[in-house]
């Protein structure tokens, strides 16, 4: 800078050379210069003043206020209003697991995922995995940027190296899970084309290759059909867990529930037969469930075919005879409901699926309940090609390999072989978002965005489209994989433009509502979904099934004596992709009620034979040997497990998933066999189980399996009885009072509440509840419920506000207390969602010494965390045991940081719902009936100067429920759904509502705590003689 000679004056005094100024000009604080006492320096007064000031300043500086970074917007973003959530339609897809969703964001952070009501596939329903996926966004295990040979690199370097190396690598193969995005497929195709027609190999961890392959055999096109469980009066499933984990469970659960809802006016429901080895969620909902060995499953399907063919007059096939209970009965009923029945199989054996197709053809279900003319694309995996790829890789025939968001080193049967072969390829690339088992083996990792940061489109079914849009700007230096593919293929268009272009050219033309593409695009994006209607037609069968039948007769055995392993998928962990999500790890399995583990499920008979008795989760480990591989796994005694079989869940045993999942359970993928050309999830030969003496504890949230014949807890009946008497199965306690027997609610010490405005309540249909647990995760997300980890679950201290009680039936008589504790060999199962019952005569409210839990003027039992001193008296006195205590400080506590990510990790905390307090140590918490949603709904109505409309407020659990088993509403509102469901006729403001629905009951009615939660009796569609 140039020297300047300008002079700046301190003031006018300096300019005028005021003598008073000049005198003190060299003093630092001329103001504090001596006053009065001459030139002796500061006076005593000044000294004291300065001292006083310094002391005060020092003391003030010492008590520093914590810095809270709440910075207001300088320029407020148009769409973001602090504390007002925004909702964006988007799509969850992981491989072929699909759900159209609505993402709730607060101040730019996605915090909750709900189903998209406009979706014809999943509607407003979600699954546990979809609900929990929002936490995976904030997972610190995600890669923060591109990596080359495990070292952090920049994108430019990675791009240039990948491009040049792939160009010279020779044969390039792209490995992916099912891609249901047409634009992604286009981008992949572009990429493949750029590298000499690289082969795209699709596989699925949970393969349904058998169905697609069979469809090719039967109808000439490899695809999954569209199933219509709602149109089926008789459903027969051979091991297909269609309510829990099979293909598109949310959709199927929704359809299934339609056929299971009954009213007095329409006392009809579908009948469901299940033939399976492990007790699945679907099997536990079946009216008739027959445990069969996996080695018999093909023969069972063939036997059903023969039975039906006999009736239809078609040719039958010879096969070893199997004795399977209920099969004949199922065949008769299927035949009686021709055209309105459905037979499915979970088998991955194409031959079995061919026979299934033939059965549905014989039953005229083709085009009605099974629709191949409207193919679904949820699974496109080809086990044979993937198998071939592993062989090629190891033989050095693959020059370059690109893994597109898939982890075959972990989740493919030959994962170990594949892992060993990756190094043989000259170039290896992965777009995986984390350094997982596969990504850690490749040279270049170009991490993809999380789906909540991405643009994409989806075509899960013919004529069904949906879009996903970013709900947050990328947290890390990641790049959408499709952008990577386009970049590597030399295309400079962004994927967003590419996507729009693709829609303009292929989808836009299918509609005639608008000729403006932007308008079409905006509407599709707003709705999240777009459909093209099409008619269902029956596909014509190609040929006979004799080849399949003879293959089945050869491959399956009627009398296998060896132990059989049936590998299954758990609802929470699924295929293991999201294993690092603590919400899913701690989600209690709907059947076993276990968390944080996989285990070998064995039958009660096996346990008795081997002297194993489980008590409070305490068990022993066993050595499971499959062929030449063996693993040590804990054993869980599972009523309903077919004798001679054992079950083991996939998705565990991750080694590089991250802090949460590493080392949890064992990997079952490596036990699967590919020897028949498809991934066989049942291993029927060479399996042995040897109980070791090692003790182990499985963390179960429920250790008592039966409801002890307590009809005051679970009330159930069967359809024929319900038809005769709508009160069937009801336990109606009466108490003697002054010469007559009256309902317990007629006797009370309390005057009773009056609710002049709203009276919130829940009605829970145990007939619709399939036990999937989506509500439990939804509640966890909505209400910032802490994850406590395996040890604390073992200590019986999980924090769930809503749980699903699962009870098995027992063969013992009421009164035989010991006998009732033992579940039946093949039990009937009942699911009972249990949350705070918001009692009108709440036992918790009277006992709190400090009135921390009180009753609201709208019927809610409310918890004031700030006031709670933690005596736990309320929890003890709660007959439903739904109150949860903060035994430790779960947030910001190192001891829980590994599991309670959402409350400990700076990134994880972004998922917290700002409307709900994170509870402190030492206070009780429990279901609030989503009071934050109620308040917000009321405020909106108040602002708009109107009454709250039914349906505009809904709890997280009811919203998530794919089967609408939970109905929330205002019982004071004569037009609400809950009033109609419960048939509340009397227009009363009293807390005690007269409910006229025959099936509705209060759990523990005789205690007269008078809950605001009603349950509907469980009705099974069984014949009278068998119930």
């Amino acid at each position, binding site marked *: 800078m140039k020297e300047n000679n300008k002079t700046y004056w301190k003031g006018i005094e300096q300019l005028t050379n005021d003598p008073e100024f000049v005198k003190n000009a060299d003093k630092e604080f001329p103001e504090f210069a001596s006053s009065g006492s001459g030139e002796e320096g500061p006076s005593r007064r000044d000294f004291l003043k300065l001292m006083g000031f310094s002391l005060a300043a020092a003391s003030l500086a010492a008590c520093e206020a914590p810095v809270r970074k709440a910075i207001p917007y300088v320029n407020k973003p148009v769409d973001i209003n602090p504390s007002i959530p925004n909702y964006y339609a988007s799509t969850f897809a992981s491989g072929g697991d699909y759900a159209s969703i609505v993402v709730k964001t607060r101040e730019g952070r996605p915090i909750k995922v709900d189903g998209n009501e406009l979706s014809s596939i999943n509607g407003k329903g979600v699954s546990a995995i979809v609900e929990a996926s929002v936490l995976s966004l904030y997972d610190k295990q995600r890669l923060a940027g591109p990596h080359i040979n495990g070292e952090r690199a920049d994108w430019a370097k990675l791009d240039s190296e990948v491009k040049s190396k792939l160009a010279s690598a020779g044969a390039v193969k792209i490995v992916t899970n099912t891609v249901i995005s047409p634009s992604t497929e286009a981008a992949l195709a572009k990429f493949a084309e750029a590298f000499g027609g690289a082969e795209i190999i699709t596989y699925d961890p949970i393969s349904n290759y058998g169905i697609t392959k069979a469809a090719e055999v039967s109808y000439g096109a490899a695809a999954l059909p569209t199933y219509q469980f709602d149109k089926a009066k008789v459903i027969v499933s051979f091991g297909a867990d269609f309510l829990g984990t099979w293909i598109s469970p949310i959709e199927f659960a929704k359809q299934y529930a339609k056929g299971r809802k009954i009213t007095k006016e329409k006392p009809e429901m579908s009948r469901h037969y299940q033939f399976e080895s492990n007790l699945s969620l679907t099997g536990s909902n079946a009216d008739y469930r027959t445990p069969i060995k996996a080695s018999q499953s093909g023969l069972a399907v063939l036997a059903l075919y023969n039975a039906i063919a006999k009736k239809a007059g078609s040719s039958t096939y010879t096969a070893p005879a199997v004795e399977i209970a209920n099969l004949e009965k199922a065949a008769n009923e299927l035949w009686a409901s021709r055209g309105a029945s459905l037979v499915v199989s979970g088998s991955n054996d194409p031959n079995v699926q061919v026979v299934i197709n033939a059965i549905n053809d014989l039953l005229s279900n083709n085009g009605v309940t099974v629709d191949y003319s409207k193919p679904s694309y949820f699974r496109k995996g080809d086990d044979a090609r993937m198998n071939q790829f592993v062989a090629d890789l190891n033989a050095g025939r693959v020059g370059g390999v690109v893994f597109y968001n898939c982890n075959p080193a972990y989740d493919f049967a030959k994962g170990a072989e594949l892992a060993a072969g990756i190094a043989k390829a000259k170039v290896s690339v992965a777009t995986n978002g984390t350094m997982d088992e596969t990504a850690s083996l490749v040279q270049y990792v170009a991490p993809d965005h999380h789906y909540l940061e991405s643009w994409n489109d989806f075509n899960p079914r013919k004529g069904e489209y949906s879009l996903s849009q970013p709900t947050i700007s990328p947290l890390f230096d990641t790049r959408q994989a499709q952008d990577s593919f386009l970049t590597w293929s030399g295309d400079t268009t962004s994927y967003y433009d590419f996507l729009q272009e693709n829609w303009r050219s292929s989808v836009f033309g299918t509609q005639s509502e608008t000729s403006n593409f932007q308008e079409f695009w905006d509407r599709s994006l707003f709705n999240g979904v777009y459909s093209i209607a099409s008619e269902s037609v029956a596909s014509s069968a190609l040929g006979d099934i004799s080849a399949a039948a003879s293959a089945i007769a050869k491959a399956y055995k009627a009398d296998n004596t060896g132990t059989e392993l049936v590998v299954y998928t758990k609802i929470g962990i699924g295929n293991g992709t999201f294993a690092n999500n603590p919400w899913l790890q701690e989600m209690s399995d709907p059947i076993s009620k276990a968390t944080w583990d996989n285990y070998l499920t064995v039958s009660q008979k096996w346990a008795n034979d081997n002297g194993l008795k489980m008590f409070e989760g305490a068990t022993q480990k066993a050595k499971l040997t499959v062929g030449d591989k063996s693993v040590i796994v804990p054993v869980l005694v599972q009523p309903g497990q077919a004798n001679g079989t054992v079950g083991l869940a996939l998705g565990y045993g991750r080694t590089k998933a991250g802090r949460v999942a590493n080392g949890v359970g064992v990997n079952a993928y490596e036990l699967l066999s590919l020897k028949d050309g498809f991934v066989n999830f049942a291993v029927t030969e060479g399996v042995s189980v040897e109980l070791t003496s090692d003790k182990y504890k499985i963390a179960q949230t429920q250790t*008592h399996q039966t409801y002890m014949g307590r009809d005051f807890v679970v009330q159930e009946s069967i359809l024929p009885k319900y038809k005769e008497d709508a009160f069937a199965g009801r336990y109606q306690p009466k108490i003697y009072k002054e010469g007559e027997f009256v309902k317990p609610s007629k006797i009370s010490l309390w005057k009773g509440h009056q609710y002049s405005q709203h009276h919130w309540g829940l009605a829970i249909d145990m007939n619709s509840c399939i036990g999937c647990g989506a509500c439990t995760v939804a509640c966890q997300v909505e209400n910032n419920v802490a994850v406590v980890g395996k040890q604390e679950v073992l200590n019986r201290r999980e924090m769930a506000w809503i749980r699903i009680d699962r009870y098995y039936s027992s063969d013992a008589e009421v009164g035989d*207390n010991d006998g009732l504790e033992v579940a039946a060999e093949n039990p009937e199962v009942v699911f009972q969602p249990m949350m705070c019952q918001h009692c009108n005569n709440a036992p918790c409210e009277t006992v*709190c010494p400090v009135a921390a839990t009180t009753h609201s003027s709208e019927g809610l039992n409310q918890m004031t965390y700030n006031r709670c001193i933690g005596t736990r*008296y309320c*929890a003890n006195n709660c007959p439903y045991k739904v109150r949860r205590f903060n035994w*430790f400080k779960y947030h910001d506590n190192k001891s829980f940081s590994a599991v309670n990510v959402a409350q400990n990790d700076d990134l994880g905390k972004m998922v917290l719902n700002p409307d709900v307090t994170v509870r402190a*140590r030492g206070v009780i918490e429990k279901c609030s009936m989503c009071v934050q949603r109620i308040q917000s709904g009321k405020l909106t109505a108040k602002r708009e100067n109107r009454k709250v409309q039914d349906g505009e407020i809904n709890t997280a659990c009811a919203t998530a429920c794919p089967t609408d088993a939970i109905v929330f509403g205002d019982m004071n509102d004569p037009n609400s759904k809950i009033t109609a469901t419960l048939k509340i006729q009397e227009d009363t403001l009293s807390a005690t509502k007269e409910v006229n629905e025959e099936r509705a009951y209060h759990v523990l009615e005789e205690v007269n705590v008078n809950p605001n939660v009603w349950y509907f009796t469980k009705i099974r569609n069984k014949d009278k003689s068998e119930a």
Partner: protein
Amino acid sequence: MQVTSSVREPLITGGKTLKDVTHDVSRQVEGKPTLGWILGLLVAVGTLLLGSLALVATLWEGIGMWGLNKTIGWAWDITNFVWWVGIGHAGTLISAVLLLFRQKWRMAINRAAEAMTIFAVICAAMFPIIHMGRPWLGAYWALPLPNTFGSLWVNFNSPLLWDVFAISTYFSVSLVFWYIGLIPDFATIRDRATGLRRTIYGALSFGWDGAAKTWSRYESVALILAGLATPLVLSVHTIVSFDFATSVIPGWHTTIFPPYFVAGAIFSGFAMVLTLMIITRKVFKLEDYITIGHIELMNIVIIITGSIVGIAYITEFFIAWYSGVAAEQYAFMNRAFGPYAWAYWSMMTCNVISPQLFWFKKIRTSIVATFALSIVVNIGMWFERFVIIVTSLHRDYLPSSWAMFYPTLSDIGVYLFTFGLFFTLFLLFAKFFPVINMAEVKSIVKSSSEKVNK
């Protein structure tokens, strides 16, 4: 003063004179600590320190240090609380109720029994505070204090609040009663002492002058306090039992609880008095004051209260069956035959069967047998509370929530802490306070006409 017939057994044996009484009792206060006492104090303080590790861990980390869970919200904490409160019943019963009934035999033991009461209540009162999730707030929020939190007030419906009043009233009345009784004795020690000791005991004796007027007031106050304390003996454990009786949990929701708890409290209190007295009389050579007669009488109280408790146990079963309430019936079947049957049968053996041995005069006049049985009774009474609290909670209405309780080191440690505290306080009391009410005992020395004046 009444005159006791010479046919009756003397209450004080050994032909003690008034001077002997003063000497025998004051000697402990004035002499050097004995080796036994020092060792005892070391053990007690050691236990206290060891237990305080658990206490500090609990306060620092949270209630999660204990074995409690979602189903069982109270276990050792409230078991210990009720147990200690129960023990704290004997003192007031002996001094107040027996005073009103003119039972003179009480005079030799009431001082120590009252001291025990106070220390037991201190131990008991700790638990309602430390069992809270947030004791730093709960310790004063549970009191109806005017505050600036808005119009926040305590919930008068809650039995826990009643507990606060019951325990604090009981504690204050017992403390005042005990202390007033101590005043003449402190004066006696003061009069015998010199130097610092004289000053301290002088201060403690509130300037007692031994005038007739003072004695008259002393007697009146004692009677008034006895009148006040007597209903408390019944009310405290009645109210403690309301914690359970007013709830809806099968096994808790029982109208028999008040009398049953009071009987149980007296039962365990007398057992604890016996345990302590048998040691004290031996160590301090007070066999002439605390005689076999005392022990026998207390054992008779134990038979009576033990039998009441036993009948209560059986009645509960009968009522559970008679009620026709399935959950209630199960709760009791589960007590006797469920996973905690061992606790139930320990309780039955200790509380119902073992005291019946006292029907034999040989046993009830045997010091060794009494000592052993007094401990057995206290173990039994601890199990009674454990059975009521834990076995009722662990399997209540919904089988899905059924669970087990397993104590942790912290549970044990906190219990140990109260033992350490109790014995530390008791040993300090035994050394520095007159363990026998000299003034009162002198009145029975006089009134029994057996004495020979030396």
